[in-house]
């Protein structure tokens, strides 16, 4: 089973447009789109100084743990998780079965507005993934891995 999806430049552009539009409407500082396995898929806003690789891995694990807790409580999933800080806050929201939105915001906006806007964005992104638009067969034929040699792999460790 091929369990990989292919993010083409066109899809990445659409994702980034959605994220930019959300950030503006919700007046959030930064928004990240992360896949459920912990890979960063896109972002909008200034993330300077943030270790985004670690952030993505921890967010995915956080959501995985929340989901497992939800199942213990008889819920299918908690669709949103809120972390309140002194000045900065986080809202994490699932976007379909494959992705997660992480929103960083401060006093420029409110949890109510973030929640309202993030739901619609999450839905649109989930639809984008579920429509199968990510797996474009033409792009797949360009896979760089088809021609890989053992020498290419050995080179990684030199």
């Amino acid at each position, binding site marked *: *089973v*091929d*369990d*990989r*999806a*292919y*993010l*083409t*430049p066109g*899809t*990445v*552009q659409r994702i980034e447009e959605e994220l930019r539009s959300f950030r503006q409407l919700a007046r959030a500082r930064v928004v990240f789109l992360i*896949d*459920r*396995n*912990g*890979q960063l*898929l896109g972002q909008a806003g200034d993330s300077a100084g943030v*270790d985004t*690789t*670690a952030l993505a*891995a*921890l967010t995915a*694990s956080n959501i*995985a*743990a929340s989901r*497992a807790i939800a199942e213990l409580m008889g819920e299918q999933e908690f669709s949103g998780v809120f972390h309140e800080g002194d000045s900065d806050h986080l809202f994490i929201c699932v976007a379909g079965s*494959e992705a997660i939105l992480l929103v960083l915001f401060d006093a420029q906006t409110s949890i109510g507005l973030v929640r309202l806007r993030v739901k619609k964005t999450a839905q649109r992104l989930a639809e984008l993934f579920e429509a199968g638009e*990510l797996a474009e067969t033409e*792009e*797949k034929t*360009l*896979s*760089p*891995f*088809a*021609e*890989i040699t*053992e020498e*290419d*792999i*050995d*080179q*990684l*460790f030199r």
Partner: protein
Amino acid sequence: MSFINYSSREINCKIVYYGPGLCGKTTNLQYIYQKTNPDNRGKMISLATETERTLFFDFLPLALGTIRGFKVRFHLYTVPGQVFYDASRKLILRGADGVVFVADSQVDRLEANVESLENLRVNLAEHGFDLDTIPLTLQFNKRDLGDIAPVEELNGLLNTRGVPAFTCTATTGEGVFDTLKDIAKQVVLELKKKG
């Protein structure tokens, strides 16, 4: 499902270090972290208890280089080995591209190894993976200790599939990179197979 990004030309592969409690999974990652050029690795994150037992996972991102113009990154995870953390272990296996099974070579841990390997099979199956086909490397750790089982015995017990197995002393680093290289190779060759 994981994503191959044609826009930024990068791919992330997830490798999970699995094995019974105190077998040396975290020590493997710590050694890799210490010996890797800081330009090629991110921060190592350990979610551990106050007594330094893994509570949820350790995470170490490595960016080793490019293959055919694609940046290949390996995200290394460990699971908590203690039996009662099974729910957490299961979560970490999601989206795994390859598994390193770290066995404790000590004779009195043989049963714990077998139980952990069986637990790996069950937890992989929950994510739709098969222990008999997923990229897998075995590591027989703690070869520096006394009262250890011979390699043949460990192979007979744990390596029915006949995958590559490496002897290791993770505290000194012996065998750590051999193990990592082998699983990385298997994972990338699997990508090739998928085209």
